[in-house]
Structure formats: structure tokens, C-alpha cells
């Protein structure tokens, strides 16, 4: 992918990615929220965000990935796991079974009647875990953009087989 001197930024690429990035995030949100009734879900949503992050990497290098979220990537991942396991355990505290789900249907000003299922935070947790994983992988294996467009050799690394773990786990 590298090995050759690259210009610092490609303007068209950067601008296009800015637009696409936002759109993908919206799509991912849609997948998460619609997932309970239509195709989608937290996992797919997370993969979408991951794909969007990879676009940011292409345009801005590891630095862009690192600044995707304010929180460090491992915090994103941990929060996701916390949210999911928390959702699984809250029903136990309320006297139900693990992962028992409930729903509420509040009237919201713009959206009208919205059905909120307690599976949603669980799904959001899954999304955060996937996103956190992708962020961590980019941070671990990705590089920053070269400050000068000098010929530079890739950083040596001794691993090649974990990038697809994300894909095979669920």
C-alpha cells in the first residue's frame, strides 16, 4: 500500500471522504435503530462505522483515526462491553432473567410515537465494541501520514493474521 513516496493529502479524496463519512455514519445509525424490525443491527452498524473509519485512515492516516472519537479506542471498546453486559444484567437487578427485554413507547415531539426496546442499548454496545476493535487495529497497525513526502520504509511488524478476527467472530 505504501513503499512509495505519497503526496501528503489528495484534495478530492479528502473532500469526498468527508461527505461519504457522514453518510455512512447516518446509515450505520439507521441500521442500529431499525435493526430490531428490519435488516440491520448493532453488528452491521459497527462494521459500517468501521468501514467509515477506514476511509478516514486512507485520507488522514492513523492520526485521523485516533481523533475519530474523543475517547481512546480502548475506552470505546470497554464502554461497549459495559453497556451490553449492563443491559444484560439490569433485568436481573429488577428481578427478571438475564437479558430479559422490555419496551416503552413514549410520545416524542417530532417523531411521534416511538417504540424503544431495551435491546437497543445492547445493540449499541455491540456497535461500540466493533468500532473500538477497528479503531484499535488501525491504531496498532496503521501509520501516520508522512510529514515530508520522503521515501520511508514501513514499520516492521510481526503480525498478519488478526485483522479478520473482527469478521469471523459473530
Amino acid at each position, binding site marked *: 500500500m505504501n513503499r512509495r513516496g505519497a503526496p501528503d493529502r489528495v484534495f478530492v479524496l479528502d473532500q469526498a471522504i468527508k461527505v461519504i463519512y457522514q453518510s455512512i455514519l447516518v446509515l450505520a445509525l439507521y441500521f442500529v435503530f431499525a435493526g430490531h424490525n428490519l*435488516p440491520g443491527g448493532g453488528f452491521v452498524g459497527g462494521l459500517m462505522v468501521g468501514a467509515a473509519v477506514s476511509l478516514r485512515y486512507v485520507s488522514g492516516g492513523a492520526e485521523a483515526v485516533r481523533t475519530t472519537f474523543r475517547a481512546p479506542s480502548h475506552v470505546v471498546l470497554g464502554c461497549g462491553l459495559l453497556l451490553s453486559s449492563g443491559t*444484560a444484567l439490569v433485568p436481573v437487578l429488577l428481578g427478571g432473567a438475564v437479558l430479559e427485554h422490555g419496551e416503552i413507547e413514549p410520545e416524542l415531539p417530532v417523531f411521534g410515537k416511538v417504540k424503544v426496546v431495551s*435491546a437497543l442499548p445492547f445493540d449499541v454496545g455491540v456497535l461500540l465494541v466493533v468500532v473500538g476493535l477497528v479503531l484499535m487495529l488501525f*491504531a496498532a*497497525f496503521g501509520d501516520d501520514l508522512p510529514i515530508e513526502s520522503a521515501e520511508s520504509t514501513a514499520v516492521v511488524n510481526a*503480525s498478519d493474521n488478526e485483522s479478520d478476527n473482527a469478521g469471523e467472530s459473530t
Partner: protein
Amino acid sequence: MFTLLVFHLVLGVAVIAAGRRLGRSGFALAGLAPLATVVWALTQTDEVLDGEARVETFSWVGGLNIAIDLRLDAFALLMVALVSGVGLLICIYALGYFQPHGPGDVVKDNVGRLAGMMTLFAGAMLGVVLSDHLIALFIFWELTSITSYLLIGNDDINPRARAAALQAILITGMGGLVLLAGLIIIGQSAGTYLLSELILDPPTGAIVNTGLIFVLIGAFTKSAQAPFSSWLPGAMVAPTPVSAYLHSATMVKAGVYLVARLAPMFALSGNWRLVVLTVGSATMLIGGLRALRQHDLKLLLAYGTVSQLGFMMLLFGTGDDHIAQAGVVLLLAHAAFKAALFMVVGMVDHQVGTRDIRKLHGFGVSWRPALVAGVVGAASMAGVPPLFGFISKEKALEGYVDHGDFVGSTVILVVIVVASILTFAYSARFVLGLFGAFAEPEADDLSHVARAPSFGFVAPALLLTVVSLGVGIAPVLVDRLVKASTVALHPAAEPKHLHLWAGFTSAFMLSLVVIGAGTLLTLLRGQVSTAQRSASHALRFIPTSEQAFNFLLRAVGFTARRVTGFLQNGSLPIYVSVILMVATGVPLVAFAGAWSGFGDVVETPAHVVLVAMIMAAALGASIVRRRIAAALMLAAVGYAMAGFYVSQGAPDLALTQFAIETLSTVLFVLVLRYLPATWTHRAPAIAAPMRIAVSMFVGVAIFVFALVASGARSDVPGPQQSEAMVENSLTKGKGRNVVNVILVDFRGWDTMGEITVLLVAAVGAVSLARSGRRSDEIGAPTFEEILDPDEPDDFVDNDGPASPLVGNESSGGIS
């Protein structure tokens, strides 16, 4: 009772936490715990000795019906008095022992820690003797092992101390695990884990007999019985207060205690008596013989302790109440004289700097109090009237003479007499050693000029001496305690009074024989030691338990190294092949039986196209030379699979598959750029035909799985699982998307597990990446250098601190 245990815990932790600042005075603080226990025990005395038991219960693991049931009966009271009484004296003694001069200096830094740890040990030991529930007893039992380990190894810069500690915990820990198995067998067979209920209706049967053997092994390891006795002499590297407390007076009696508790219930079942009496006899004799050969006073006492523990096994293990009463007396007497003797050895060690009898030339006048304690203690150990030890030995002989009506009791009686002669002889050796009878003329004459120990240092030993003497003259002092303890062990027992003078009984005659023969042995000590040396030379091919232990340890290490070297040879191709073959081969055996032929080969025309794509891409992935091309080919396989899902009407799966393929290809490429662009087969670990065979095998196996697994669904009778899920999706899962409801609800646990796997994978990947970069920092050859030695290395090192999980700020280029 529970409060006391918690008090020990809190105090112990507090003293450890403040260890460095407290130093020696930690023992003053630590002494509060045994003091409180002694005071509390005294308040309970009347009630408990009248036969009432104090009971406290705290629910612990409710689901398994495990509670901390504490029960204070008379025998437990005796043990509490022993643990806390001796503990209190040891704390006072330790204040003197760790005075800042002499060899105590070596462990000065750790003294506070030692004090706290001893408090923790005292709490655990109290737990052992107070527990009525077998599992709680086991937990406390293990806690004593662990604290013992830490106490032996307290001087952690001394490799001998560490080795001895390791040996102790390996042996007692192994025994503890066996014990747990035994206790569970007994508890499950009886339907109760409470000692107080077990004694009412002890279980029987072959399985119980096996369980009892397990329990006995546990008890033998703890009480240093042959052939598990090697750890106890080794444990003598610990400071003397620890040895006196744990390894003579209290902890090593835990095994005896357990045997004492269980013998009334199980002495007649299985091989209990045979095993206990054989092991006890062997231990008593071997311990005595080895004690007779020691030059180190402390080791002499340690082997003496081993011998006495065997003696106790012989008394408690029979299950006869009269003999058990003798065991109760011996338990008390032994604690009194052995703790005092250890204290004397500690004083000698501390003031003179050696405890080798070849270097002791006798002591000055000011040492008299300490010497009195030593002589009286040794005399009590030897069974000389009118001391406590004499009473216990007399009682034991009387028990075996009058009530030994089981098979082999005469043999045991002979063993006891012979071992008692040995006991007399090594006790005499101890005394003679103190007075310089074994001194070598050329050795430095330090002991004559050594400063006598201060009063506070001697006082605990003197107090124990007074006990040995006082109870010996007036055994009525402990009469009530001993009787009540015997009744607590054997509810049907009618224990007799203790007497100093019971008339010219056969027991008394045997005592005279012991003393006479012991004196003879002492007078002939030169010949005896020559005989022992030649005997041990002749028997040198029989390994000692120490050698056996070391051999076992080395054998385990050797086997582990060999197995690891064979299984983990470091070749990634071999690892992958083995893992794949096992992971696919094992299920294949099960699946192949369910093979039901091919289903419909082609359902729609789209399948033909998709299959062609998959096959072409898969074939291409395996033959292209460039890595990235292969990764893209794999992605093509994945996309075609997604196409399959679409054609079968599974948009969710297709969506996920597309997303995964996209992302994993990106990540693939991200990582692949660290590797050479093309594959290089410099030295393939596995020849190509082998690789192809493995690949073919895995492919065939997966093919069979897929067909059999999808076919297996139709074998399920009744409403199918998938249909049930579709039906329940909206009503129970509150969602119309069945796939998602399965993920978050029906199979929510699976998802939980999967995201945990993701987390582990992320952490693993990051640490792998970091370890790869770390090797740059220390200048080791990097992975790329190994692969491509020709490539110029103008790589810029990473800089700046990184967060623990991310952050590898290396510069490099991306396209």
C-alpha cells in the same frame, strides 16, 4: 467466634500493611489477637467443659449449601487454647527473638510482615479447629498451608527459604487437594458435611473407604507423616518463632486433629486402622532414628516433632476412646514441651549465632533459666516423671496395654516402646548438646561468653516449663479439659482420671524399660552413632523422602520440557496444521456417520454463477504469488457468498457478510504491507504435498459439515427450532427482524460471548503489534529483517509515550 476470626484477619492485614514501620513491635500488636481469643475461650470454659457446644453459623455459598458453621466443643476448646495460648507466648518470645542484634538482623525488614502473617495463620488455624463444616474446614486448612508457605519463605532473598517454602506448599497443597476430594466423597455419601452430624450416623461403603484414604493422605501430608515428612525439617529455615508455632505446636497438628475427629466415626471402616497405624509407626520410628543423628538442635527437634506426630497418629487413629484420651494428653504435653524447646534453641541461635551441638561448649551461669527450660522440656519429651510428658506417655502405654484389643495392637505397643526409647535418647542428646558434650575442641568457644537472653526472652519458655512441671505433678489441673475433650471426640466415652502415680502397673514397668534402655542408648551413644552410620550406608539405595521429592520434581520438570519441546516446536505451519487437523478431524468422525447424501445440487440458475465465482476466486487465492492479490481473491469469495445469501432471501446475513468482507479486506491490506509482497518459500517447515493434503482434508471436512449440519435440521421431530424462533420473535423478542432478535435476545448470551471475544482479539492484536515494535527498540533483528535481510533499514523509531493499549506513533508511509 466469627468475630474473632475476622479480628485475626483485620489485625493481620493491618500489621502487614504497617509492617515496615512497625518492625519488631508488630508482634506486640499481633499478640492482641491470641490474647483476645484466650480471654474469650476462658469465658466459655465452664459451659463447654460441661458438654455444651457453642454454635455459630454464617451462610456463605448458599447455592451449594456451604456455610461457615463454627462449633466450639471441648476438643475444639483445647485446640483453641493451644493455638492461641502458644500463639500469645510466641508473640512475646518473638519480641525478644527479633531484638536488633544477632542473626535476627537478617530478616529485620520483614519482621512486621512476619508478625502479620502469623496473625493470619492463627486465624486460619482457629478456623480449622472451630469449623464444623468439612468444606469450611478445608478452606481454613488450605489457608494455613498458604500462610505457612509465606512464613517459611518470609526471608525471600534466601534461596533455601524459598525452596523449603515451595516444597512445603507443594506437599501440603497436593495433600490438600486430595483431602478435598476425600471430604466431598464423605460429605456426599453421608448427605451432610457437618462433623457434628456425621458422628451420629457415619456413612459406610466402598466409596467412603476410598474417600477416607484420600482424607488420610491429606492429613499425613499436613502432619508430616512418612513418606511426606521431608518438608517439615526443610521448614526449619524459617525464624524460630515460626518453627515453634507452626511447625511444632499448631499447624502440623491439623492432620492429627482431623484424624482425631474422624477416627471415632471411621476407625473400623475399610483400611483406616491399617493405614493410620502403619504410617504412624513408620513415622514415629523414622523420625526418632533421624533425630538421633542430627547435630543441628533445631533439626533434632524437627525430626523429634515428626516422631511425636506419628505417635499422635497411633493414639488418635485407633478409634478407641481410652487411647484417644492419651492422644489428647500428648497433644497438650507436646505443645508445652516442644514450644519451650524450640524457644530455647531460638535463644541459643540468637545469642550465640549457631545451634550446632559441635560448636556449643556449654553456657555460663547467667544462662541457667534458659537451660532449666531446655532440660525440663527435654525431660518431659523423654517421658521422665514427674513431668507432663511422662503422664502422656504413661497414659498411652496404659491405653494400649489395657484397651489394645484389635489386631496388631501388640506390635504397635512394641513400636511405641521402641520409639519412646529413641525419644529418650534424642532428648538426652539435646540436653547433652546444650551442655557441650558434643563440642569439638577446635570450635570457637562462643557459648561460654555469649550474653544470656533477657528476661522477656526467656519468660515464655519458663512459663511453658512451669506448665510441664505443674501439670506433671498435679495432672488434675487438666483433668476436666482432657475428659471433656475425649467425650467431645467419643460421645460414648467414659474417660478415667489422670494420675501421676497409678501404681506398679505394666505401663509403669514399660516406662521404666523406656527410661532404662534410653539411658543405655545415651551412654553408648558413640557405638550407636557408628551403627547408625553404617546402617544408613547400607541402606543408601533406599531413597529418603527428601530425595524422592526432588526426583519427582525433576521428573515433572523433565517431562514438561520434553512435552513442550515436542508440541511447541515454534513452527507456525505445524501449529496451524495440527490445530486444523484436530479441529476438523475430530468432529468429522462424528459427522461422517450422519452423512445422508447430497441435497438438491442447483436450486436457481444464480447458484451456478456464484459457485463458479467462488471456485475461481478460491483457486486463484491459492495460486497467485502476491499476498495482496490473494487477500482480494478471498474477499471475492466472501462477496460471492453474500450473493448466495441474497439469492436465498437472507438480507441480514448478506449485509453483514458484505460489511465484514469489506472491513476485513481493508484490515488485511493494512497488515499485509508489513510483509514481503510475494510469498517466499525459503525453508518450508512442511513440504508442499503435506500442505496440500492438509488443505484438502480441511476442505473436505468443512464440506461434509456443511451438508450434514444443514441436513440434520430435518431430523428434529416436532416444531422446528427455527419456526419457533420466527413465531416468538415479535411476541417475546419485541422485534420483527428474527435474525436480530436471535442475536440480542434468544441467543443474547452468545452475543455477549462474541463481543468478549472481540475484546480479547483487539487486545491480542494490539499487544502483538506492540511487541513487534518493542523488538525494534531493543535492537533485536526485526521480523522484516529476518525475512528480507537485504532491505535497507532506515526506519524511524517510534517516539513519545503511548497509552497502554494503543498509540504506536511510528512514522512510515501510506499511499
